[in-house]
Protein backbone atom coordinates (compact mmCIF):
# COMPACT_ATOMS: atom_id res chain seq x y z
CA UNK A 1 0.00 0.00 0.00
CA UNK A 2 2.65 2.44 1.09
CA UNK A 3 4.74 1.29 -1.83
CA UNK A 4 1.96 2.13 -4.29
CA UNK A 5 1.59 5.59 -2.84
CA UNK A 6 5.27 6.35 -3.23
CA UNK A 7 5.27 4.98 -6.77
CA UNK A 8 2.33 7.18 -7.74
CA UNK A 9 3.99 10.19 -6.19
CA UNK A 10 7.21 9.92 -8.08
CA UNK A 11 5.61 8.90 -11.36
CA UNK A 12 2.76 11.36 -11.68
CA UNK A 13 2.43 15.00 -12.53
CA UNK A 14 3.92 15.72 -9.11
CA UNK A 15 7.23 15.83 -10.96
CA UNK A 16 6.28 19.21 -12.35
CA UNK A 17 4.12 20.43 -9.49
CA UNK A 18 6.57 19.76 -6.69
CA UNK A 19 9.33 22.07 -7.98
CA UNK A 20 6.80 24.85 -8.61
CA UNK A 21 5.44 24.43 -5.09
CA UNK A 22 8.97 24.54 -3.74
CA UNK A 23 9.65 27.73 -5.68
CA UNK A 24 6.44 29.32 -4.36
CA UNK A 25 7.39 28.45 -0.79
CA UNK A 26 10.91 29.82 -1.19
CA UNK A 27 9.62 33.03 -2.80
CA UNK A 28 7.08 33.64 -0.04
CA UNK A 29 9.43 32.79 2.82
CA UNK A 30 10.57 36.38 3.49
CA UNK A 31 6.91 37.37 4.01
CA UNK A 32 6.97 35.28 7.17
CA UNK A 33 9.21 37.82 8.89
CA UNK A 34 12.44 35.90 8.73
CA UNK A 35 15.40 37.71 10.19
CA UNK A 36 17.88 39.30 7.79
CA UNK A 37 20.40 36.68 8.81
CA UNK A 38 18.22 33.82 7.64
CA UNK A 39 17.51 35.64 4.38
CA UNK A 40 21.25 36.11 3.91
CA UNK A 41 21.79 32.39 4.46
CA UNK A 42 19.09 31.52 1.92
CA UNK A 43 20.56 34.03 -0.52
CA UNK A 44 23.98 32.40 -0.26
CA UNK A 45 22.44 28.98 -0.67
CA UNK A 46 20.64 30.06 -3.85
CA UNK A 47 23.92 31.38 -5.30
CA UNK A 48 25.62 28.08 -4.49
CA UNK A 49 22.77 26.09 -6.00
CA UNK A 50 23.15 28.03 -9.26
CA UNK A 51 26.86 27.22 -9.42
CA UNK A 52 26.28 23.61 -8.44
CA UNK A 53 23.62 23.06 -11.11
CA UNK A 54 25.83 24.79 -13.69
CA UNK A 55 28.84 22.61 -12.85
CA UNK A 56 26.66 19.54 -13.12
CA UNK A 57 25.74 20.44 -16.72
CA UNK A 58 29.36 19.94 -17.72
CA UNK A 59 30.65 17.60 -15.03
CA UNK A 60 27.56 15.50 -14.44
CA UNK A 61 25.71 15.28 -17.75
CA UNK A 62 28.74 15.46 -20.04
CA UNK A 63 31.30 13.85 -17.75
CA UNK A 64 33.91 16.60 -18.17
CA UNK A 65 35.18 17.31 -14.67
CA UNK A 66 36.41 20.88 -14.32
CA UNK A 67 38.46 22.23 -11.44
CA UNK A 68 38.27 25.73 -12.91
CA UNK A 69 34.77 27.05 -12.37
CA UNK A 70 36.09 29.79 -10.09
CA UNK A 71 37.34 31.42 -13.31
CA UNK A 72 33.76 32.05 -14.44
CA UNK A 73 32.52 32.85 -10.96
CA UNK A 74 35.29 35.38 -10.46
CA UNK A 75 35.10 36.93 -13.92
CA UNK A 76 31.34 37.24 -13.52
CA UNK A 77 31.81 38.90 -10.14
CA UNK A 78 34.40 41.34 -11.49
CA UNK A 79 32.43 42.00 -14.69
CA UNK A 80 29.26 42.82 -12.77
CA UNK A 81 31.20 44.85 -10.18
CA UNK A 82 32.85 47.04 -12.81
CA UNK A 83 29.51 47.60 -14.56
CA UNK A 84 27.73 48.49 -11.31
CA UNK A 85 30.55 50.84 -10.37
CA UNK A 86 30.17 52.49 -13.78
CA UNK A 87 26.57 53.26 -12.85
CA UNK A 88 24.68 50.69 -14.93
CA UNK A 89 21.65 48.80 -13.68
CA UNK A 90 22.72 45.68 -11.77
CA UNK A 91 20.48 43.50 -13.92
CA UNK A 92 22.28 44.69 -17.04
CA UNK A 93 25.51 44.05 -15.13
CA UNK A 94 24.50 40.42 -14.55
CA UNK A 95 23.96 39.97 -18.28
CA UNK A 96 27.40 41.43 -18.92
CA UNK A 97 28.78 39.06 -16.27
CA UNK A 98 27.23 36.16 -18.16
CA UNK A 99 28.69 37.47 -21.41
CA UNK A 100 32.18 37.79 -19.95
CA UNK A 101 31.96 34.27 -18.53
CA UNK A 102 30.78 32.85 -21.85
CA UNK A 103 33.69 34.50 -23.66
CA UNK A 104 36.06 33.07 -21.07
CA UNK A 105 34.47 29.65 -21.46
CA UNK A 106 35.31 29.68 -25.17
CA UNK A 107 38.84 30.86 -24.46
CA UNK A 108 39.29 28.03 -21.96
CA UNK A 109 37.33 25.43 -23.87
CA UNK A 110 38.70 25.85 -27.40
CA UNK A 111 42.14 24.50 -26.47
CA UNK A 112 41.31 22.30 -23.46
CA UNK A 113 38.44 20.32 -24.96
CA UNK A 114 40.96 18.79 -27.32
CA UNK A 115 42.08 16.92 -24.20
CA UNK A 116 40.21 13.97 -22.84
CA UNK A 117 38.79 13.18 -19.39
CA UNK A 118 41.40 13.50 -16.67
CA UNK A 119 43.75 15.60 -18.77
CA UNK A 120 41.00 18.14 -19.24
CA UNK A 121 40.44 18.14 -15.46
CA UNK A 122 44.12 18.75 -14.80
CA UNK A 123 44.40 21.50 -17.40
CA UNK A 124 41.52 23.34 -15.72
CA UNK A 125 43.54 23.48 -12.49
CA UNK A 126 46.25 25.29 -14.45
CA UNK A 127 43.76 27.65 -16.07
CA UNK A 128 42.18 28.49 -12.73
CA UNK A 129 45.46 29.22 -10.98
CA UNK A 130 46.79 31.27 -13.91
CA UNK A 131 43.67 33.41 -13.89
CA UNK A 132 43.99 33.99 -10.15
CA UNK A 133 47.62 35.05 -10.46
CA UNK A 134 46.80 37.45 -13.30
CA UNK A 135 43.85 38.96 -11.44
CA UNK A 136 46.04 39.35 -8.36
CA UNK A 137 48.31 41.60 -10.39
CA UNK A 138 45.90 43.45 -12.62
CA UNK A 139 45.65 47.15 -11.88
CA UNK A 140 42.20 48.01 -13.24
CA UNK A 141 40.55 45.60 -10.80
CA UNK A 142 42.55 46.69 -7.78
CA UNK A 143 44.85 43.66 -7.88
CA UNK A 144 45.13 41.52 -4.80
CA UNK A 145 43.61 44.17 -2.54
CA UNK A 146 40.24 43.73 -4.17
CA UNK A 147 37.44 45.87 -5.51
CA UNK A 148 34.63 47.69 -3.73
CA UNK A 149 31.24 47.45 -5.39
CA UNK A 150 29.34 50.70 -4.96
CA UNK A 151 25.73 50.61 -6.00
CA UNK A 152 23.60 53.76 -6.11
CA UNK A 153 20.54 53.70 -3.87
CA UNK A 154 19.63 52.00 -0.62
CA UNK A 155 20.51 48.40 0.18
CA UNK A 156 17.38 46.27 -0.13
CA UNK A 157 18.12 42.72 0.91
CA UNK A 158 14.94 41.29 -0.58
CA UNK A 159 15.93 42.49 -4.06
CA UNK A 160 19.09 40.47 -3.77
CA UNK A 161 17.21 37.51 -2.37
CA UNK A 162 14.66 37.37 -5.17
CA UNK A 163 17.31 37.82 -7.83
CA UNK A 164 19.28 34.90 -6.46
CA UNK A 165 16.20 32.68 -6.15
CA UNK A 166 15.01 33.46 -9.67
CA UNK A 167 18.49 32.78 -11.03
CA UNK A 168 18.69 29.45 -9.21
CA UNK A 169 15.21 28.48 -10.44
CA UNK A 170 16.21 29.40 -13.98
CA UNK A 171 19.33 27.26 -13.70
CA UNK A 172 17.33 24.28 -12.46
CA UNK A 173 14.74 24.75 -15.22
CA UNK A 174 17.43 24.91 -17.92
CA UNK A 175 19.14 21.88 -16.41
CA UNK A 176 15.86 19.91 -16.42
CA UNK A 177 15.10 20.97 -20.00
CA UNK A 178 18.55 19.92 -21.16
CA UNK A 179 18.29 16.63 -19.29
CA UNK A 180 15.12 15.75 -21.20
CA UNK A 181 16.17 17.09 -24.59
CA UNK A 182 17.96 15.59 -27.54
CA UNK A 183 20.96 17.75 -26.69
CA UNK A 184 20.99 16.23 -23.19
CA UNK A 185 20.93 12.79 -24.74
CA UNK A 186 23.92 13.72 -26.89
CA UNK A 187 25.76 14.92 -23.79
CA UNK A 188 25.08 11.65 -21.99
CA UNK A 189 26.30 9.77 -25.03
CA UNK A 190 29.56 11.75 -24.92
CA UNK A 191 29.92 10.89 -21.25
CA UNK A 192 29.49 7.19 -21.89
CA UNK A 193 31.68 6.87 -24.94
CA UNK A 194 32.91 9.85 -26.87
CA UNK A 195 33.97 7.88 -29.93
CA UNK A 196 30.72 5.98 -30.17
CA UNK A 197 28.82 9.26 -29.81
CA UNK A 198 30.86 10.77 -32.62
CA UNK A 199 30.08 7.76 -34.81
CA UNK A 200 26.38 8.34 -34.23
CA UNK A 201 26.60 11.90 -35.48
CA UNK A 202 27.18 13.87 -32.29
CA UNK A 203 29.94 16.44 -32.52
CA UNK A 204 31.60 16.02 -29.08
CA UNK A 205 33.86 19.05 -29.40
CA UNK A 206 31.03 21.42 -30.31
CA UNK A 207 28.59 19.97 -27.77
CA UNK A 208 31.15 20.34 -24.99
CA UNK A 209 31.82 23.94 -25.98
CA UNK A 210 28.11 24.80 -25.90
CA UNK A 211 27.36 23.16 -22.57
CA UNK A 212 30.51 24.74 -21.14
CA UNK A 213 29.25 28.15 -22.31
CA UNK A 214 25.81 27.62 -20.74
CA UNK A 215 27.37 26.47 -17.47
CA UNK A 216 29.76 29.45 -17.53
CA UNK A 217 26.90 31.88 -18.13
CA UNK A 218 25.07 30.71 -15.00
CA UNK A 219 28.22 30.59 -12.91
CA UNK A 220 29.15 34.08 -14.09
CA UNK A 221 25.73 35.45 -13.20
CA UNK A 222 25.94 33.78 -9.79
CA UNK A 223 29.31 35.48 -9.31
CA UNK A 224 27.75 38.81 -10.28
CA UNK A 225 24.86 38.37 -7.85
CA UNK A 226 27.31 37.49 -5.11
CA UNK A 227 29.50 40.52 -5.90
CA UNK A 228 26.54 42.91 -5.79
CA UNK A 229 25.43 41.59 -2.41
CA UNK A 230 28.85 41.30 -0.88
CA UNK A 231 29.93 44.80 -2.03
CA UNK A 232 33.58 43.79 -1.82
CA UNK A 233 35.41 41.15 -3.84
CA UNK A 234 39.03 40.11 -4.08
CA UNK A 235 40.84 37.46 -6.15
CA UNK A 236 41.76 35.38 -3.08
CA UNK A 237 38.04 34.80 -2.56
CA UNK A 238 36.24 34.59 -5.90
CA UNK A 239 39.15 33.10 -7.89
CA UNK A 240 40.40 30.82 -5.11
CA UNK A 241 41.02 27.15 -5.80
CA UNK A 242 38.77 26.61 -2.79
CA UNK A 243 35.88 28.21 -4.70
CA UNK A 244 36.35 25.82 -7.62
CA UNK A 245 36.41 22.97 -5.16
CA UNK A 246 33.26 24.13 -3.38
CA UNK A 247 31.46 24.33 -6.72
CA UNK A 248 32.55 20.79 -7.52
CA UNK A 249 31.84 19.43 -4.06
CA UNK A 250 28.13 20.32 -4.06
CA UNK A 251 27.07 18.15 -7.01
CA UNK A 252 29.26 15.34 -5.68
CA UNK A 253 27.53 15.49 -2.31
CA UNK A 254 24.11 15.62 -3.93
CA UNK A 255 24.70 13.17 -6.76
CA UNK A 256 26.21 14.09 -10.09
CA UNK A 257 24.42 13.59 -13.39
CA UNK A 258 20.97 14.11 -11.87
CA UNK A 259 18.78 17.21 -12.03
CA UNK A 260 18.00 17.43 -8.32
CA UNK A 261 21.20 16.08 -6.83
CA UNK A 262 23.15 19.32 -7.32
CA UNK A 263 20.25 21.31 -5.81
CA UNK A 264 20.27 19.08 -2.75
CA UNK A 265 24.05 19.36 -2.59
CA UNK A 266 23.84 23.14 -2.84
CA UNK A 267 21.27 23.36 -0.03
CA UNK A 268 23.35 21.14 2.21
CA UNK A 269 26.57 22.92 1.38
CA UNK A 270 25.07 26.39 1.82
CA UNK A 271 23.41 25.72 5.14
CA UNK A 272 25.66 23.09 6.67
CA UNK A 273 28.88 24.88 5.78
CA UNK A 274 27.65 27.95 7.60
CA UNK A 275 26.77 25.88 10.67
CA UNK A 276 30.05 24.00 10.48
CA UNK A 277 32.08 27.18 10.29
CA UNK A 278 30.13 28.67 13.19
CA UNK A 279 30.20 25.67 15.49
CA UNK A 280 33.46 23.99 14.54
CA UNK A 281 35.66 26.81 13.23
CA UNK A 282 38.76 24.74 13.82
CA UNK A 283 37.80 21.49 12.20
CA UNK A 284 35.42 22.33 9.37
CA UNK A 285 38.02 21.40 6.73
CA UNK A 286 38.49 18.10 8.49
CA UNK A 287 34.76 17.45 8.55
CA UNK A 288 34.44 18.33 4.86
CA UNK A 289 37.38 16.17 3.93
CA UNK A 290 36.02 13.24 5.88
CA UNK A 291 32.56 13.72 4.40
CA UNK A 292 34.06 13.68 0.91
CA UNK A 293 36.08 10.54 1.67
CA UNK A 294 33.01 8.77 3.07
CA UNK A 295 30.86 9.72 0.07
CA UNK A 296 33.49 8.47 -2.35
CA UNK A 297 34.02 5.20 -0.51
CA UNK A 298 30.47 4.38 0.49
CA UNK A 299 28.01 6.17 -1.79
CA UNK A 300 29.63 7.42 -5.01
CA UNK A 301 26.23 8.46 -6.36
CA UNK A 302 25.84 10.96 -3.56
CA UNK A 303 22.69 11.64 -1.60
CA UNK A 304 20.48 11.00 -4.62
CA UNK A 305 21.99 7.54 -4.85
CA UNK A 306 21.26 7.02 -1.17
CA UNK A 307 17.68 8.28 -1.58
CA UNK A 308 17.15 6.05 -4.59
CA UNK A 309 18.36 3.09 -2.60
CA UNK A 310 16.07 3.94 0.31
CA UNK A 311 13.14 4.41 -2.07
CA UNK A 312 13.82 1.03 -3.59
CA UNK A 313 13.83 -0.43 -0.10
CA UNK A 314 10.46 1.16 0.69
CA UNK A 315 8.93 -0.05 -2.55
CA UNK A 316 10.44 -3.47 -1.81
CA UNK A 317 10.36 -4.50 -5.42
CA UNK A 318 12.21 -7.67 -6.29
CA UNK A 319 15.85 -6.68 -6.33
CA UNK A 320 17.90 -6.69 -9.46
CA UNK A 321 20.86 -8.99 -9.29
CA UNK A 322 23.45 -6.24 -9.56
CA UNK A 323 22.05 -3.16 -7.88
CA UNK A 324 24.65 -0.83 -9.33
CA UNK A 325 26.08 -2.46 -12.39
CA UNK A 326 25.89 -1.23 -15.98
CA UNK A 327 25.34 2.33 -15.08
CA UNK A 328 26.28 5.44 -17.02
CA UNK A 329 27.79 6.93 -13.84
CA UNK A 330 30.48 4.30 -14.02
CA UNK A 331 32.02 6.09 -16.95
CA UNK A 332 32.94 8.99 -14.73
CA UNK A 333 33.50 7.04 -11.58
CA UNK A 334 35.94 4.72 -13.22
CA UNK A 335 35.56 1.40 -14.87
CA UNK A 336 33.52 -1.03 -12.84
CA UNK A 337 34.99 -3.04 -10.03
CA UNK A 338 34.37 -6.24 -11.94
CA UNK A 339 37.04 -5.32 -14.48
CA UNK A 340 39.85 -7.83 -14.21
CA UNK A 341 41.53 -6.79 -11.00
Amino acid sequence: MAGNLVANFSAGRIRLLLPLLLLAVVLSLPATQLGPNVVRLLFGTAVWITCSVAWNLLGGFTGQVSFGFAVFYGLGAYGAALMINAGYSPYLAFLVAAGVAVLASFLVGLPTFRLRGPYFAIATIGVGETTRVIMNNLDITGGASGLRVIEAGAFRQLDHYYTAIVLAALAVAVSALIAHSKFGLALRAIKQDQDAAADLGVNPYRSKLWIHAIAAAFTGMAGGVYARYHAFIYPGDVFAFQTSISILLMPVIGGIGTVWGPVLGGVIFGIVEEELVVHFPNIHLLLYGSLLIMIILFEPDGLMGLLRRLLRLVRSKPKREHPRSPDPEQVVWGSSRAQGH
Partner: protein
Amino acid sequence: MTAVDYLSLLISALLLAGIYAAMAVGMTVIYGVMKIVNLAHAGFLMLGAYFAFEMYDRFHFDPILGAVAALPVFFVFGMGVHWLLVRWLPKSDTPTLASLLLMFGLWQVLQNIGYLKWGNTAYSIFTPRSLSSIHIGEISLPKDKLVVFAAAVVSLVLLQLIFHRSWFGRSMRSLIQNPYAAQIVGVDDERTSRLSFGLGTAFAGFAGALLAMLYPFTPDFGPPFLLRSFVIIVLGGLESISGVALGALILAVLETFSINVPLPWYWHGWNSYYLPASYQPAVSFVLLVVVLLVLPKGIAGLLEKKWRVT
Protein backbone atom coordinates in the same frame (compact mmCIF):
# COMPACT_ATOMS: atom_id res chain seq x y z
CA MET B 1 73.53 41.13 -17.82
CA THR B 2 76.97 39.62 -17.89
CA ALA B 3 77.98 36.06 -18.58
CA VAL B 4 78.60 35.48 -14.86
CA ASP B 5 75.05 36.57 -14.11
CA TYR B 6 73.70 34.05 -16.58
CA LEU B 7 75.96 31.35 -15.18
CA SER B 8 74.86 31.96 -11.63
CA LEU B 9 71.22 31.97 -12.72
CA LEU B 10 71.81 28.67 -14.47
CA ILE B 11 73.42 27.21 -11.37
CA SER B 12 70.59 28.33 -9.12
CA ALA B 13 68.12 26.86 -11.60
CA LEU B 14 70.02 23.58 -11.45
CA LEU B 15 69.97 23.58 -7.65
CA LEU B 16 66.24 24.30 -7.74
CA ALA B 17 65.73 21.46 -10.20
CA GLY B 18 67.17 18.98 -7.69
CA ILE B 19 64.58 19.71 -5.03
CA TYR B 20 61.82 19.93 -7.64
CA ALA B 21 62.70 16.47 -8.90
CA ALA B 22 62.70 14.97 -5.40
CA MET B 23 59.36 16.63 -4.77
CA ALA B 24 57.72 15.37 -7.95
CA VAL B 25 59.07 11.84 -7.99
CA GLY B 26 56.72 10.59 -5.26
CA MET B 27 53.78 11.68 -7.33
CA THR B 28 55.15 9.88 -10.39
CA VAL B 29 55.52 6.59 -8.56
CA ILE B 30 51.94 6.72 -7.34
CA TYR B 31 50.59 7.89 -10.68
CA GLY B 32 52.54 5.29 -12.60
CA VAL B 33 51.49 2.29 -10.56
CA MET B 34 47.95 3.25 -9.58
CA LYS B 35 46.98 5.99 -12.06
CA ILE B 36 45.97 8.19 -9.15
CA VAL B 37 46.65 11.92 -9.27
CA ASN B 38 47.70 12.30 -5.69
CA LEU B 39 46.26 15.63 -4.57
CA ALA B 40 47.12 14.68 -0.98
CA HIS B 41 50.75 15.09 -2.06
CA ALA B 42 50.42 18.70 -0.88
CA GLY B 43 49.41 17.44 2.56
CA PHE B 44 52.31 14.98 2.72
CA LEU B 45 54.80 17.71 1.72
CA MET B 46 53.41 19.93 4.46
CA LEU B 47 53.60 17.19 7.09
CA GLY B 48 57.16 16.44 5.97
CA ALA B 49 58.12 20.06 6.57
CA TYR B 50 56.63 20.03 10.06
CA PHE B 51 58.24 16.67 10.77
CA ALA B 52 61.68 18.15 10.08
CA PHE B 53 60.76 21.14 12.20
CA GLU B 54 59.65 19.03 15.16
CA MET B 55 62.75 16.85 14.93
CA TYR B 56 64.92 19.96 14.94
CA ASP B 57 62.98 21.69 17.67
CA ARG B 58 62.68 18.78 20.09
CA PHE B 59 65.67 16.56 19.45
CA HIS B 60 68.00 19.03 17.72
CA PHE B 61 68.20 16.83 14.67
CA ASP B 62 69.86 18.54 11.75
CA PRO B 63 67.07 19.06 9.16
CA ILE B 64 68.96 16.83 6.74
CA LEU B 65 68.86 14.00 9.28
CA GLY B 66 65.22 14.90 9.88
CA ALA B 67 64.55 14.46 6.18
CA VAL B 68 66.22 11.05 6.18
CA ALA B 69 64.25 10.07 9.29
CA ALA B 70 61.07 11.14 7.49
CA LEU B 71 61.57 8.42 4.87
CA PRO B 72 60.66 5.37 7.01
CA VAL B 73 58.02 7.25 9.00
CA PHE B 74 56.18 8.44 5.91
CA PHE B 75 56.64 5.07 4.24
CA VAL B 76 54.64 3.42 7.01
CA PHE B 77 52.16 6.29 7.04
CA GLY B 78 51.60 5.98 3.29
CA MET B 79 51.06 2.24 3.52
CA GLY B 80 48.50 2.89 6.25
CA VAL B 81 46.68 5.42 4.07
CA HIS B 82 46.64 2.94 1.22
CA TRP B 83 45.33 0.17 3.44
CA LEU B 84 42.67 2.35 4.99
CA LEU B 85 41.43 4.35 1.99
CA VAL B 86 43.09 3.98 -1.37
CA ARG B 87 42.70 0.25 -1.89
CA TRP B 88 38.90 0.58 -1.91
CA LEU B 89 38.91 2.78 -4.99
CA PRO B 90 37.75 1.19 -8.24
CA LYS B 91 40.73 0.15 -10.32
CA SER B 92 41.18 1.92 -13.60
CA ASP B 93 43.67 2.57 -16.38
CA THR B 94 43.05 6.31 -16.29
CA PRO B 95 42.68 8.66 -13.34
CA THR B 96 39.11 8.67 -12.08
CA LEU B 97 37.14 11.48 -10.48
CA ALA B 98 36.64 9.26 -7.45
CA SER B 99 40.38 9.00 -6.85
CA LEU B 100 40.90 12.75 -7.37
CA LEU B 101 38.20 13.59 -4.86
CA LEU B 102 39.29 11.00 -2.33
CA MET B 103 42.84 12.34 -2.32
CA PHE B 104 41.48 15.87 -2.20
CA GLY B 105 39.42 14.98 0.88
CA LEU B 106 42.49 13.47 2.51
CA TRP B 107 44.47 16.61 1.75
CA GLN B 108 41.82 18.74 3.48
CA VAL B 109 41.93 16.47 6.52
CA LEU B 110 45.74 16.62 6.69
CA GLN B 111 45.71 20.39 6.26
CA ASN B 112 43.19 20.78 9.04
CA ILE B 113 45.30 18.59 11.31
CA GLY B 114 48.21 20.89 10.45
CA TYR B 115 46.20 23.94 11.47
CA LEU B 116 45.07 22.31 14.71
CA LYS B 117 48.57 21.34 15.70
CA TRP B 118 50.67 24.29 14.49
CA GLY B 119 48.24 27.15 13.79
CA ASN B 120 48.65 29.36 10.77
CA THR B 121 51.78 31.27 11.67
CA ALA B 122 54.66 30.63 9.30
CA TYR B 123 57.53 28.53 10.68
CA SER B 124 60.98 28.22 9.29
CA ILE B 125 64.01 26.15 10.24
CA PHE B 126 67.03 28.25 10.96
CA THR B 127 70.39 26.51 11.36
CA PRO B 128 73.89 27.99 11.43
CA ARG B 129 74.17 26.80 7.83
CA SER B 130 71.18 28.80 6.66
CA LEU B 131 72.93 32.06 5.91
CA SER B 132 76.39 30.90 4.93
CA SER B 133 77.49 30.29 1.41
CA ILE B 134 80.45 29.11 -0.60
CA HIS B 135 82.11 31.50 -3.02
CA ILE B 136 83.65 30.34 -6.25
CA GLY B 137 84.97 33.30 -8.14
CA GLU B 138 82.09 35.74 -8.46
CA ILE B 139 79.44 33.10 -7.96
CA SER B 140 78.15 32.47 -4.47
CA LEU B 141 76.33 29.27 -3.62
CA PRO B 142 74.16 29.09 -0.49
CA LYS B 143 75.20 26.05 1.55
CA ASP B 144 71.64 25.07 2.34
CA LYS B 145 70.76 24.81 -1.32
CA LEU B 146 73.86 22.74 -2.01
CA VAL B 147 73.06 20.31 0.80
CA VAL B 148 69.44 20.00 -0.30
CA PHE B 149 70.53 19.45 -3.88
CA ALA B 150 72.97 16.73 -2.85
CA ALA B 151 70.34 14.98 -0.73
CA ALA B 152 67.83 15.15 -3.55
CA VAL B 153 70.26 13.74 -6.10
CA VAL B 154 71.34 10.89 -3.82
CA SER B 155 67.71 9.98 -3.13
CA LEU B 156 66.88 9.97 -6.83
CA VAL B 157 69.83 7.72 -7.63
CA LEU B 158 68.79 5.34 -4.86
CA LEU B 159 65.25 5.30 -6.18
CA GLN B 160 66.50 4.58 -9.67
CA LEU B 161 68.52 1.64 -8.26
CA ILE B 162 65.46 0.30 -6.43
CA PHE B 163 63.49 0.63 -9.63
CA HIS B 164 65.94 -1.30 -11.75
CA ARG B 165 67.74 -3.68 -9.42
CA SER B 166 65.15 -5.05 -7.02
CA TRP B 167 62.24 -7.44 -7.37
CA PHE B 168 59.93 -4.78 -5.95
CA GLY B 169 61.16 -2.25 -8.51
CA ARG B 170 60.68 -4.69 -11.32
CA SER B 171 57.15 -5.49 -10.22
CA MET B 172 56.41 -1.77 -9.99
CA ARG B 173 57.68 -1.22 -13.49
CA SER B 174 55.68 -4.14 -14.81
CA LEU B 175 52.52 -2.70 -13.24
CA ILE B 176 53.29 0.65 -14.84
CA GLN B 177 53.74 -0.94 -18.24
CA ASN B 178 50.85 -3.36 -18.23
CA PRO B 179 48.90 -4.23 -15.09
CA TYR B 180 47.12 -7.23 -16.64
CA ALA B 181 50.24 -8.86 -18.00
CA ALA B 182 52.00 -8.17 -14.70
CA GLN B 183 49.34 -10.03 -12.78
CA ILE B 184 49.44 -12.93 -15.18
CA VAL B 185 53.14 -13.42 -14.53
CA GLY B 186 52.57 -13.34 -10.80
CA VAL B 187 53.04 -9.78 -9.59
CA ASP B 188 51.00 -9.16 -6.45
CA ASP B 189 49.03 -6.10 -7.49
CA GLU B 190 47.68 -5.24 -4.04
CA ARG B 191 51.00 -5.55 -2.24
CA THR B 192 52.98 -3.68 -4.88
CA SER B 193 50.41 -0.88 -4.90
CA ARG B 194 50.63 -0.61 -1.12
CA LEU B 195 54.42 -0.48 -1.18
CA SER B 196 54.43 2.04 -4.05
CA PHE B 197 52.00 4.26 -2.23
CA GLY B 198 54.27 4.06 0.80
CA LEU B 199 57.28 4.88 -1.35
CA GLY B 200 55.53 7.84 -2.98
CA THR B 201 54.48 9.17 0.41
CA ALA B 202 57.96 8.63 1.83
CA PHE B 203 59.42 10.75 -0.94
CA ALA B 204 56.79 13.43 -0.41
CA GLY B 205 57.69 13.60 3.29
CA PHE B 206 61.39 13.65 2.49
CA ALA B 207 60.97 16.43 -0.08
CA GLY B 208 58.76 18.38 2.32
CA ALA B 209 61.51 18.23 4.94
CA LEU B 210 64.06 19.44 2.39
CA LEU B 211 61.76 22.26 1.27
CA ALA B 212 61.41 23.30 4.92
CA MET B 213 65.12 24.17 4.91
CA LEU B 214 64.64 26.61 2.04
CA TYR B 215 61.22 28.15 2.50
CA PRO B 216 59.02 29.19 5.43
CA PHE B 217 55.98 26.98 5.77
CA THR B 218 52.38 27.05 7.01
CA PRO B 219 49.76 24.28 6.86
CA ASP B 220 48.77 25.80 3.51
CA PHE B 221 52.32 25.27 2.27
CA GLY B 222 51.51 22.52 -0.25
CA PRO B 223 49.46 23.89 -3.16
CA PRO B 224 52.11 25.75 -5.18
CA PHE B 225 54.43 22.77 -4.84
CA LEU B 226 51.67 20.33 -5.65
CA LEU B 227 50.92 22.13 -8.89
CA ARG B 228 54.61 22.37 -9.75
CA SER B 229 55.04 18.65 -9.09
CA PHE B 230 52.19 18.07 -11.41
CA VAL B 231 53.66 20.19 -14.18
CA ILE B 232 56.92 18.29 -13.77
CA ILE B 233 55.44 14.83 -14.02
CA VAL B 234 53.34 15.85 -17.01
CA LEU B 235 56.48 17.23 -18.65
CA GLY B 236 58.28 14.01 -17.85
CA GLY B 237 55.61 11.86 -19.43
CA LEU B 238 53.92 10.91 -16.12
CA GLU B 239 55.69 7.66 -15.31
CA SER B 240 59.46 7.75 -15.56
CA ILE B 241 62.08 8.92 -13.07
CA SER B 242 64.47 10.30 -15.66
CA GLY B 243 61.51 12.11 -17.20
CA VAL B 244 60.88 13.71 -13.83
CA ALA B 245 64.49 14.90 -13.60
CA LEU B 246 64.24 16.44 -17.05
CA GLY B 247 60.86 18.02 -16.34
CA ALA B 248 62.17 19.47 -13.07
CA LEU B 249 65.13 20.99 -14.89
CA ILE B 250 62.93 22.57 -17.55
CA LEU B 251 60.52 24.04 -15.02
CA ALA B 252 63.33 25.33 -12.79
CA VAL B 253 65.13 26.97 -15.70
CA LEU B 254 61.95 28.58 -17.00
CA GLU B 255 60.91 29.83 -13.58
CA THR B 256 64.34 31.25 -12.81
CA PHE B 257 64.95 32.83 -16.16
CA SER B 258 61.44 34.14 -16.82
CA ILE B 259 61.63 36.72 -14.07
CA ASN B 260 65.35 37.47 -14.08
CA VAL B 261 66.02 37.89 -17.76
CA PRO B 262 64.60 40.86 -19.65
CA LEU B 263 62.41 40.06 -22.61
CA PRO B 264 63.11 42.24 -25.63
CA TRP B 265 60.09 43.84 -27.24
CA TYR B 266 59.49 46.55 -29.78
CA TRP B 267 57.72 49.81 -28.96
CA HIS B 268 59.28 52.97 -30.38
CA GLY B 269 62.59 51.15 -30.59
CA TRP B 270 63.83 48.10 -28.72
CA ASN B 271 63.07 47.89 -25.02
CA SER B 272 63.54 45.29 -22.40
CA TYR B 273 60.78 44.17 -20.14
CA TYR B 274 61.10 42.29 -16.87
CA LEU B 275 58.22 39.99 -16.04
CA PRO B 276 57.11 41.02 -12.54
CA ALA B 277 58.13 38.42 -9.96
CA SER B 278 54.52 38.13 -8.84
CA TYR B 279 53.72 36.46 -12.16
CA GLN B 280 56.23 33.69 -11.51
CA PRO B 281 53.63 31.18 -10.25
CA ALA B 282 51.74 31.59 -13.52
CA VAL B 283 54.76 30.33 -15.47
CA SER B 284 54.28 26.76 -14.33
CA PHE B 285 50.57 26.75 -14.99
CA VAL B 286 50.90 28.20 -18.46
CA LEU B 287 53.56 25.59 -19.09
CA LEU B 288 51.19 22.90 -17.82
CA VAL B 289 48.40 23.86 -20.19
CA VAL B 290 50.74 24.27 -23.14
CA VAL B 291 52.46 20.93 -22.53
CA LEU B 292 49.16 19.10 -22.10
CA LEU B 293 48.01 20.49 -25.43
CA VAL B 294 51.17 20.17 -27.47
CA LEU B 295 52.87 17.16 -25.91
CA PRO B 296 50.26 15.09 -24.07
CA LYS B 297 52.82 12.36 -23.47
CA GLY B 298 55.48 14.75 -22.23
CA ILE B 299 59.01 14.98 -23.43
CA ALA B 300 59.51 11.26 -23.04
CA GLY B 301 56.64 10.75 -25.47
CA LEU B 302 58.27 13.06 -27.95
CA LEU B 303 61.57 11.19 -27.78
CA GLU B 304 59.78 7.88 -28.05
CA LYS B 305 58.08 9.06 -31.22
CA LYS B 306 61.40 10.18 -32.67
CA TRP B 307 63.01 6.84 -31.92
CA ARG B 308 60.16 4.93 -33.43
CA VAL B 309 60.46 6.91 -36.64
CA THR B 310 64.17 6.37 -37.07
